[in-house]
């Protein structure tokens, strides 16, 4: 039986259809999860997709964090459930304190959409095992508030523990500290990523198909478990 991966839809989620497609193309069954439901429907992993949950009012991800589905999700993630937060999903993970730090306004003050080169710094997480350490990939990036910030001690810790999952190459598109594009929790099961791997899963519509690796990674882990 195919692994079942949940994709949460909050009001204002936009890339939920894309995340579901990526899950399907990777060979798993996407399961739609609704923000008002407490159940995770027994899924094997969860993707928090990009978008503007609750209009990003107050602060990106700040309201989504209090959605009923997040109560169950936070518990499950602490118990080892693999969770990938993309863009707004990354912001929600930070607001939920599953990941440290915060995402703030791009240093350019503009929304930016571009094909972004990244280096996979840690290929041992639940979501990056399909890559080689140091592998360079290109996936779309699109955000208005994608500048990753944390205090120096936290940044040092993330670096020391290998929890910087991916870093921007060529151009730092949003002013992220230490060119950080994505980080993980200590267990390597919860990953937050500002770029959008779900938009790089088909040669026709993406700049590459490099994004698929994030979704096949988690499948390998689930099948192996």
């Amino acid at each position, binding site marked *: 039986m195919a692994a079942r991966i949940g994709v949460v839809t909050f009001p*204002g989620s936009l890339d939920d259809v*894309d995340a579901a497609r990526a899950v399907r193309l990777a060979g798993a069954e996407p399961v739609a999860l609704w923000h008002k439901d407490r159940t995770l429907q027994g899924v094997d992993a969860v993707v928090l997709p*990009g978008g503007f949950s609750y209009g990003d009012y107050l602060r990106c991800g700040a309201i989504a964090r209090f959605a009923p589905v997040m109560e169950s999700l936070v518990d499950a993630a602490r118990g080892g459930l693999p969770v990938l937060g993309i863009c707004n999903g990354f912001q929600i993970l930070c607001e939920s304190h599953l990941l440290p730090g915060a995402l703030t306004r791009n240093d350019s003050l503009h*929304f930016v959409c571009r094909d972004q080169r990244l280096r996979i710094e840690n290929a041992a997480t639940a979501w990056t095992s399909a890559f080689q350490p140091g592998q360079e990939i290109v996936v779309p990036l699109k955000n208005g508030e994608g500048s990753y910030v944390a205090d120096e001690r936290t940044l040092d810790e993330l670096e020391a523990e290998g929890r910087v999952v991916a870093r921007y190459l060529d151009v730092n598109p949003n002013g992220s500290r230490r060119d950080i594009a994505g980080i993980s929790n200590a267990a390597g099961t919860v990953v937050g990523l500002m770029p959008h791997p779900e938009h790089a899963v088909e040669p026709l519509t993406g700049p590459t198909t490099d994004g698929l690796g994030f979704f096949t990674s988690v499948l390998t882990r689930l099948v192996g478990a």
Partner: protein
Amino acid sequence: MTVDTVAHAAATPDVVQPFAELGLKPDEYERIRAILGRRPTSSELAMYSVMWSEHCSYKSSKVHLRQFGEKAPKTDALLVGIGENAGVVDIGQGWAVTFKVESHNHPSYVEPYQGAATGVGGIVRDILTMGARPVAVMDPLRFGPADAPDTRRVLPGVVAGIGGYGNCLGLPNIGGEVVFDETYLGNPLVNALCVGTLRHGDIKLAKASGPGNLVVLFGAKTGGDGIGGVSVLASETFDADGPAKRPSVQVGDPFTEKVLIECCLEIFAADLVVGIQDLGGAGLSCATSELASAGSGGMHVVLDRVPLRDPTLSPEEILMSESQERMCAVVEPAKAARFLEICERWDVTATVVGEVTDTGRLVVEWHGEVVVDVPPRTVAHEGPVYHRPFARPGGQDDLQADAPTADRLPRPSTPDELRATLLRMVAAPNLAAKTWVTSQYDRYVRGNTVLAQPEDAGMVRVDEETGLGVALATDGNGRHCRLDPYAGAQLALAEAYRNVAASGARPLAVTNCLNFGSPEDPAVMWQFAEATRGLADACLELGVPVTGGNVSFYNQTGEVAILPTPVVGVLGVIDDVDRRTPMGFGPEGETVLLVGETRDELGGSEWAHVVHGHLGGLPPVVDLRRERQLAEILVAGSRDGMLTAAHDVSDGGLAQALVEMCLRSGRGARVFLPDGVDPFVALFSESAGRAVVAVPRSEELRFTDMCVARHVPVVRIGVVDGDALDVQEQFSVTVEELRAASEATLPALFG
């Protein structure tokens, strides 16, 4: 607060009413009195004034727009034609698409961010109203000179507003235009296009049928924003000493609209509405009168039930408010509970505000008293119609005689001069890379974007199983239209049509946004009459019907009108998006061909504009038969896998087309200019009906044979090669240098 009820109006016939301040002419006011047999109440006056404004009633343009229907080509593709919120086109496999372009020019000048944002919001609701899921947007934009201080105020705001709203809706922005010209300085053109997809059976119409059915208002609450926006902002010229109109611009909330879209689509899927209308210009006045007028003919609305953001609003203000993100549906009573349940699921406020009647009257009640009692057709569909006088302006002959001939405008001739001209053109704001703008738009969301700017056309996949897709391009050239509005409008259509074909899609249907100065100026009205006549004739000849669009008049500052600017959008269909043709060069060694004929045509050209600041002569000749043949070649070349790249030749001529193909691919080309043509003309003429294509050597003969069989000139002009654009015996520029020139301009101006 005293309320001007119908009874009160009947009893006080001599009350002086501010009809002129509301934009109504004395004879229009008299007509309202005649229709009603009494003076209108202030609520009725508000309603008629907004609905009879130029923006809502098309009173000056109607007699000309009729041609789009009268001259419409015979086609089976149209499922819904002109007159509804947007036309619906059959694209096969049970799928249909609906698309339309609209203007939001005046609000965007006053308040660039909100004006542009709500422009996106409005057109998206029009598409949604047809029963379709909106799937992409495009924005044709025009501003004053790129280095003008006010452009630095308007452009960044407009771009941020489009991005801020569209990105938050989750709609990929797949194309459009950014054009600069002196005449747009006080009147930027902010046009917005949306396309949506639906199954044939799912079309919804704006009509209130079935007496007893409920009228449900849902979405955002009604506030004081945008009151008078339609009648005042869209219909009056900006005068230096006019009143400040800032508060009239509506404020958008894209999050509310995103939720409203998903809520509506769920309601449509459950088949819960009889009719639906969005609330845009003229708000509730427009929605109720149009729904009633197109349906059973009557409606009773209890205005007290309208959820308000500001409880102090008067009935007149509630009727006129243009608060965004609102919809009005007609629902059978048996389905109301389910309807409200879905709204609840999405946290969308929904309120039953009235019901459909068969009285033939639109009756609006406020605190138990009747404040509106009118025949809805007289509000919505039987507004005034003007036959405005028009006359070819006196200076037109002189303008056309002022041709950019070699003896009058010096032309570059040496290789160094040609090279310098090329680099100057590449960096000119109209031709330079628009990445500064388009990188602020999400082009990836929904994962179906196959082509997006700077490609010739934007293309989205409609059906993931079969690969069925649609392509869209918008074009307009105000300078060409100024020289000859009839030909200029046709050139705009031809260019958009060619762009769609270049992507590999078969052109099917047209939408247009007609941006002009004051219709009260006979010279402007002549431009409008000529442009609509030209466009209608060309649509007939090319076999692509106009499905809908929008007119924006009064784009002028004082006596000076903008360049007449019909913006034309063409929609095409492609059976398998895998077959699309991109614009960038493919592998090295492929043959580069120029299809079409090059003449000495520089009237209204980008070269004359950039190098000499000159506008005169005649625009390029339009040959619609040739355009059609060229399109057939480009579509067949894509379908049969002969083409690896195709790019239309237009602004900036062959030189710019080659530069763009190099920049898009990062590959260079060795180019041999055709014999017998002056190198300058070959590079910079803007003759229409041309495209540059790249074909694998194995396909070259098959492709050129196809051109010859269709009597379309084709000439081999080079080969994809190296890392420079190398024009043999003339000059060479590396792709890197081209990129630096092209990409530096906008960031240097806008930060």
